[in-house]
């Protein structure tokens, strides 16, 4: 078991013609992920890397039974692609595209409430269940199957932590990059609850950062609902207020989003807080 993606995932890539989309597709195929379809308006009927290309998501689903979509189009087209995939009946949408206008995300979140679909991202570095399914860009050799679930707002941090765990002999159940935006489709809190219910996951690493309320909301779930241990690490303690630290969503505004406030909330809720990256594997091994 795992959460969200597994051996039954049949992936559709929207934006295969972009530079990132092409690299992702090549990597995902090499890692054995079932990439069954690509969607590129104006290029339907062709093939890319032995993957059939369709004009629309609906057409792709009919022909291939795709159940998951990876969006890696340009930011200007991301909202259209997400809405098209949702309307066509895709159950899980992973939007790797970053820098999607935040008003687009406001509308999408409002609309998706009325649809039976889960959105991860935008700006998601990917969604990985080792040896079963890789959605997004990761060198598959750094993953190792195991029982630690990982949640992250950052790609680079997630990759680094996966590597630190793999080096320490600690495998992962599923890794979810929730995205770097001001507003994302699915937050930490919901995913923590899914890890709690997943028999394959024994403990969770939560990689937070400044800005927003993700970590504070997670703390409530950790306190009220989680029996499995959570190791939390939050970056951005050194960030000056009011400055966007690389991610659209990584910004301290007034009193909102301070790293220390998040760390305190997580610690109070019972999470084991790592002060540095290097401490994370040791906090897991305590079990």
């Amino acid at each position, binding site marked *: 078991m795992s959460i969200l993606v597994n051996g039954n995932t049949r992936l559709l890539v929207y934006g295969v013609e972009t530079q*990132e989309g092409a*690299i992702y597709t090549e990597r995902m195929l090499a890692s054995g992920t079932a990439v069954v379809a690509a969607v590129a308006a104006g290029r339907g009927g062709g093939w890319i890397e032995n993957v059939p290309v369709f004009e629309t998501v609906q057409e792709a689903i009919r022909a291939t039974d795709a159940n998951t979509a990876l969006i890696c189009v340009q*930011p*200007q087209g991301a909202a259209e692609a997400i809405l098209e995939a949702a309307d066509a009946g895709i159950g899980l949408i992973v939007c790797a595209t970053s*820098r999607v*206008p*935040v*008003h*687009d*995300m*406001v*509308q999408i*979140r*409002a*609309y998706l409430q009325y649809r039976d679909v889960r959105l991860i991202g935008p700006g998601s*570095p990917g969604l990985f269940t080792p040896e079963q399914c890789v959605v997004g*860009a*990761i*060198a598959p050799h750094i993953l190792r199957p195991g029982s630690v679930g990982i949640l*992250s707002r*950052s*790609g*680079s*941090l*997630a*990759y*680094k932590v996966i*590597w630190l765990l793999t080096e320490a002999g600690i495998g992962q159940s599923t890794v979810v990059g929730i995205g*770097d935006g*001001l*507003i994302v489709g699915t937050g930490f809190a919901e995913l923590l609850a899914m890890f709690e219910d997943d028999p394959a996951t024994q403990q969770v690493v939560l*990689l937070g*950062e*400044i*800005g*927003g*309320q993700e970590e504070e*909301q997670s703390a409530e779930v950790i306190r009220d609902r989680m029996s499995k241990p959570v190791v939390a*690490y939050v*970056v*951005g*303690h*050194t*960030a*000056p207020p009011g*400055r966007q*630290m*690389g*991610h*659209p*969503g*990584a910004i301290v*505004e*007034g*009193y*909102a989003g301070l*790293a220390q406030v998040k760390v305190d909330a997580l610690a109070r809720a019972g999470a084991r807080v790592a002060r*540095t*990256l*290097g401490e994370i594997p040791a906090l897991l091994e305590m079990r």
Partner: protein
Amino acid sequence: MRLHEYQAKKILGRYGIPVPPGDVASSVDEVYRIADRIGQRVVLKAQVLTGGRGQAGGIRLADDADAARRLAGQMFGMQVAGYPVEKVLVDQAIDVEQETYLGIQLDRASAQPLLVASAEGGLEIAEVAHDTPERVSSVPIEPLLGLRSYQVRALADEIGLPRERHNDFVPVALGLYRAFNDMDATLVEANPLVIRCDGTFCCLNSRIVIDDHALYRHPDLIDLRDESQDTLPERVARRHGITYVRLGGHVGCLSNGAGLAMATIDLLRAHGVRPANFVDVGKGATLEKVARGIELARNNSTQVIVVHVFCSLTSCDTIARGILRGCESLTPGFALVVCLQGPRQEEGQAMLQQASQEDRYPPICLSSCLDELVDQVQALMRQAQAEGVGE
């Protein structure tokens, strides 16, 4: 992108929100002409993209055009928190019966805009909300329906606005919301929104922040960016799609991803090393971008630059080439500490190792783990200090 007050004021005027008569000036003579045209008491306001200008002497009252000219002479060329004053807004001074706050914010957690109001006007609303939460009221706006009049009336009631003012309050709130939507804003504030002695509303100051990622659909707004308010490294960084934030310490920090970059500066800070800057070249960085990033990290007279990179899309030899390219254009007198992992890491590390032997490159220490990285940075800082004392 934050707009200047004079830009925001013009925009709100177009949405039917009452603003004081006035105009923006770039010179003392212009200030005089505008004040003379207004023909009564004016307020001069330094246009800087930061707070706290009142205390810094950036807001002054002038009784007539001559006084305005005199005060403007002091204002142009001064700095507020490091931001240069290059423009001054000249507005007619407005009589005030009551100051309020009205704004549209984006609530990240609920993914909805909020209409926020307070009977406390003219203050930083985050401060008011923190110190006296009961004095700030808000109503969530369902994005698919938009803001409705009844919501505005309920909010007006909540902050104790006199009933006879509600009818005038509603179009102000609806106008703010239309501006918020039309411009892809993440914040639109009328603060203070005042009630004048004759009972009418007037917006005396406004802050508007536009979503940078939506600027492609607002060519008219792109032109409003005032680059004089950014430092040179910030401008260079923006042109190359790099994030650069000055931090004031001594060690330059470059990473390929915001999370890793923040983890690095936090790590150094936790070990008593003060980072000079935060340079994030992002995922999938090209050779050119890494080279520019190294140049940016060398800013602020750093003696040590830390490069902490974990690759997934880019291969490590590309990163290594970028690092070396960046070093070639810089004057010597600094050392690099590099932690480089990902595809082709052996090749990348070997290239750096070899370059380190050559005179045209700075000394390069390779770290295989974070403890080692911190040790190396601390050793280099001690060395630099000792050399500094020796001179």
